[in-house]
């Protein structure tokens, strides 16, 4: 009797020790995101049966909370097998330069990804001549969403320039509609909107230069951007400090607000609420510019299930994986060889733009600058929302750029 029991325990222990596992860390917990992730898991399980998938997620927009958990795990020597990270400076500055990642250039060569992904995206996942992560999707940050019914009712045309934006906003305001929905509870949303104003005022080259030192933060166009943003803030909902980005989108759905500047993950939210009366244009002044961010997964040093991770990364970069994931998530594939007719209307238009627009990296979503710079930037803009003092704010923006070692 006892011997049997001991044997049983020993066997079950063996099974848990040797059972194939993979732990995948992300902040995809809601709606379309979680469904997209599940699609990837399904494909993976079909190809590599018998591997147990541990879905380690931490909720919170833009990954604010997940990143904190990830850092304690990485520093504590307990890395997840693979984790979600924004391609660009967040990946390179935080994890690659500090020696936490393994290069995966061999995967790019084996799978031929370097031939099917555009240069704009390959650039931001590479460092020192090696590739460091697989981009699963591309999101666009500079979109202005609007409620079609409201615009039709008042005979308005969606604004393309700042001038038109203020004209439209004035009309909406006079009818008691909130012109611009904003949610600033999590601290990054205002900076996200301001990012598109910077692009609108400085253009692609000027905006990119801000993060490399080619454009000075003391530039009069930055002053103009701040003044314009301050003016835009006069048209937002008064309770923005109580709302998160999705609660701001809810104002559009409910027909209380007419416009919203948000990334295209808003599409997933609208669909989840069965709301189809939305239209989109680019944020004011952003014509011909694609403000991009990308979620990617890499291979941390010391991953416990290295082989399984490599196989998972293969799924992420595959045509099948990118198609299944992005249809659900509302983003577009990083690969350019996927038939766009398989996607809904918004994504089709984004996929066309992805090929012909100029691509700039999003700062608020980790692509354009290091996390420390982004944190300071978001704090300065957060304060600006409450105290729109253009001069002080511009000075603060100059000094945080200096602190990052970017000459001003």
């Amino acid at each position, binding site marked *: 009797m006892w011997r049997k029991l001991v044997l049983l325990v020993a066997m079950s222990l063996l099974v848990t020790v040797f059972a194939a596992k993979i732990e995948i860390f992300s902040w995809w917990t809601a709606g379309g995101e979680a469904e997209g992730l599940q699609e990837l898991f399904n494909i993976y399980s079909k190809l590599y049966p018998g591997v147990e998938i541990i879905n380690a997620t931490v909720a919170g927009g833009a990954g*604010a909370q997940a990143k904190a958990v990830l850092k304690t795990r990485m520093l504590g020597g307990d890395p997840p097998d693979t984790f979600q990270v924004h391609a660009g400076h967040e990946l390179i500055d935080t994890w690659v330069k500090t020696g936490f990642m393994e290069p995966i250039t061999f995967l790019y060569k084996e799978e031929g990804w370097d031939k099917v992904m555009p240069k704009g995206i390959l650039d931001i996942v590479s460092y020192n001549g090696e590739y460091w992560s697989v981009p699963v999707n591309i999101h666009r940050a500079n979109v202005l969403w609007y409620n079609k019914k409201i615009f039709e009712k008042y005979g308005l045309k969606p604004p393309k320039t700042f001038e038109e934006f203020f004209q439209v906003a004035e009309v909406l305001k006079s009818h008691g509609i909130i012109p611009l929905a904003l949610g600033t509870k999590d601290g990054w949303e205002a900076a996200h909107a301001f990012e598109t104003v910077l692009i609108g005022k400085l253009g692609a080259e000027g905006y990119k230069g801000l993060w490399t030192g080619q454009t000075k933060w003391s530039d009069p166009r930055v002053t103009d951007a701040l003044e314009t943003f301050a003016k835009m803030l006069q048209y937002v909902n008064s309770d923005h400090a109580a709302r998160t980005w999705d609660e701001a989108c809810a104002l559009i759905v409910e027909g209380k607000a007419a416009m919203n500047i948000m990334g295209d993950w808003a599409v997933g939210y609208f669909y989840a609420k069965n709301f189809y009366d939305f239209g989109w244009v680019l944020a004011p002044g952003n014509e011909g510019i694609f403000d991009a961010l990308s979620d990617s997964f890499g291979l941390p040093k010391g991953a416990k299930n290295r082989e399984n991770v490599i196989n998972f990364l293969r799924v992420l970069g595959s045509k099948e994986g990118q198609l299944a994931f992005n249809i659900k998530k509302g983003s577009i594939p990083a690969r350019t060889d996927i038939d766009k007719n398989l996607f809904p209307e918004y994504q089709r238009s984004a996929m066309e733009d992805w090929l012909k627009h100029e691509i700039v990296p999003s700062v608020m979503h980790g692509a354009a600058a290091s996390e420390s710079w982004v944190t300071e930037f978001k704090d300065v803009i957060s304060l600006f929302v409450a105290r729109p003092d253009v001069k002080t704010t511009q000075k603060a923006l100059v000094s945080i750029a200096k602190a990052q070692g970017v000459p001003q």
Partner: protein
Amino acid sequence: MKTDRIVALLFILPSLILIGIFIYGFIGWTGWVSMVNWRDVFPDFTFVGLRNYSRLFQHFRFAISMKNTLVFTILFLIASIGIGLLLAILLDRKVRFEGFFRTVYLFPMAVSFVVTGVVWRWILNPGTGGESVGLNWLLEKIGLGFLKSGWYTDPNIGIKAVVIAAVWQMSGYVMALYLSGIRSVPNELYEAAQLDGANVFQLYRYIVLPLLRPVTLSAVIILGHISLKIFDLVFAMTGSGIGFSCDVPALFMYDTTFRGNYFSQGAAIAMILLLCVAALIIPYLVYSIRSEVRK
């Protein structure tokens, strides 16, 4: 005698070692981190002295959050102790269903700060586009519409709205402290005072309140250290708030450490918080140890 001591020492040794490592050891480690140049996920242990502290004192967000903590602590202490004392006195007047009321008032303390935060975020949400929700809606319905306010979304109120939630949660606990204090006042004192012709007000003013001084001190210490370290309530209820009007040092610490990777700056904030709490607790410890020695 000697073996007794050795046995006693053996019994407390494990907890001494654990506390030594996990509390004092980590305090020492945090102190060290606050004086190096660790500003990336990869540690850099170059000694920089007090540079992180001097940077911190120039940081606008630190100044705002320290000011907010001060406002929060003062209002929270006054309101919780005032309301707690009032409730205790009322309950002490032998009301009916005393047990029921006691439970009702004490109950919020059993709720986690995170739950309180989320609920009060909804209650104090001012609504938008001319529509009122939560408390504003209630005020409007009962004809007190002029009291409507932006609550925590109004930068002039900010952290003071969080005080409301914190007081709701903790004043019942203060009531319990005071109630047990009042109940421990010997009956003879009441009788003697009544014989001397003291009315109810005088009874509390000259007999009960002076005897409750140690309870008040405990309440100040307990609530004070909670409010200096507060994180979960603010995090769940408002976040940093508009223009950092709800920001507290612990939130700033979390942000700068885990979002900004300024690990040394985060450690410096932690040390300053520790010093603030120590400034509150050490005099109390000295006082209570002295009075124990006297006994």
